[in-house]
């Protein structure tokens, strides 16, 4: 019954802007550090690159208090269900940054052990390239996500009027990039 169900009109416009501004300027990441990218994520969080400038200074370990899951590192077959479970336990609105090529497409490990791209498990909003992406690249990805939240719309649009960005009702499909296979399936270990 929240704001999402109201029809978009002039009254909800400014309230929407306020809510989107509030959401994007205090996105708290969940510590989901897996491999080498996690070290770069920590360096981004530390003093030199300082994610706190973007309202993300605290990495919440529990998914209940996190809005953004940065998948930092290679996702192994054994880790896939755990990743999906943590994603499910995160509270809406939630976003996913797939940090590094191993998370985005399996990277250099095209073998039996690595899930070739985390978008097979969770819908991904922003892909950060690099192996590991240095902190500037990660901050660029975070700013892209902020941009995406700013352009996205909150209230329902009349069918046909598709504002750029995410429609929270459906699984968020990224804009412009090749959309990942929709309906992220629950990945058990392959038979």
């Amino acid at each position, binding site marked *: *019954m*929240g*704001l*999402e169900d109201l029809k978009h009109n002039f009254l909800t416009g400014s309230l929407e802007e306020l*809510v989107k501004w509030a959401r994007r300027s205090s996105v708290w990441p969940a510590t989901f550090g897996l491999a080498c990218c996690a070290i770069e994520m920590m360096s981004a969080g530390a003093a030199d690159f300082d994610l706190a400038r973007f309202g993300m200074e605290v990495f919440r370990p*529990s*998914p*209940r208090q996190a809005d953004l899951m940065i998948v930092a590192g290679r996702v192994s077959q054994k880790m896939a269900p*755990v*990743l999906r*479970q*943590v994603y*499910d*336990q995160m*509270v*809406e*609105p939630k976003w996913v940054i797939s940090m590094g090529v191993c998370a985005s497409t399996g990277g250099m490990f095209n073998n039996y052990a690595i899930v070739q791209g985390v978008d097979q498990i969770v819908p991904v909003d922003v892909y950060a390239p690099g192996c590991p992406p240095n902190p500037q690249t990660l901050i660029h990805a975070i700013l892209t996500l902020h941009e995406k939240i700013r352009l996205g719309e909150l209230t329902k649009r009349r069918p046909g009027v598709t504002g750029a960005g995410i429609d*929270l009702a459906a699984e968020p499909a990224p804009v412009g990039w090749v959309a990942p296979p929709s309906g992220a399936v629950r990945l058990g270990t392959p038979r």
Partner: protein
Amino acid sequence: MGSLDSYLPIFFMIVLGVAFAALSFGASKLLAPQRPTSAKEAPYECGIVPTHEPARRFPVRFYLIAMIFVVVDIEIIFLFPWAVDAQSLGRFGLVEILVFAVSVFVPFVYLIAKGALDWGPVKRVRPLESESVRTSSSTVRRIGPSSGEAA
């Protein structure tokens, strides 16, 4: 009305408190998307779906700690009214509150003496009690190239 307006600040404090609480709950109910799923209700165990639900029987020490807390907490609540007009109560008030505080403090000391609070690790080994001041350079020895066995 004279005596009533001295209660005005307290009244505003209550109104402000309730308003703030109502605003935050209302805003989150209104603005946050409500999509409850079974996973969100499940207990969070570091990403693992727990196979067996958490143990029902908690060790008794947890309750002990809770009881000690309740006793000391009530003592603080009694201090509030005394603190409001401590000036007018004067010396008599002071002695009275001291007696009350001592009467709560004595059982607390007894509890500590009985070891209710220190249920620390059983296997904690207290090494070298004598040389208690260990620094990062005193607790290590250095083996230079000469004294070491030449390979």
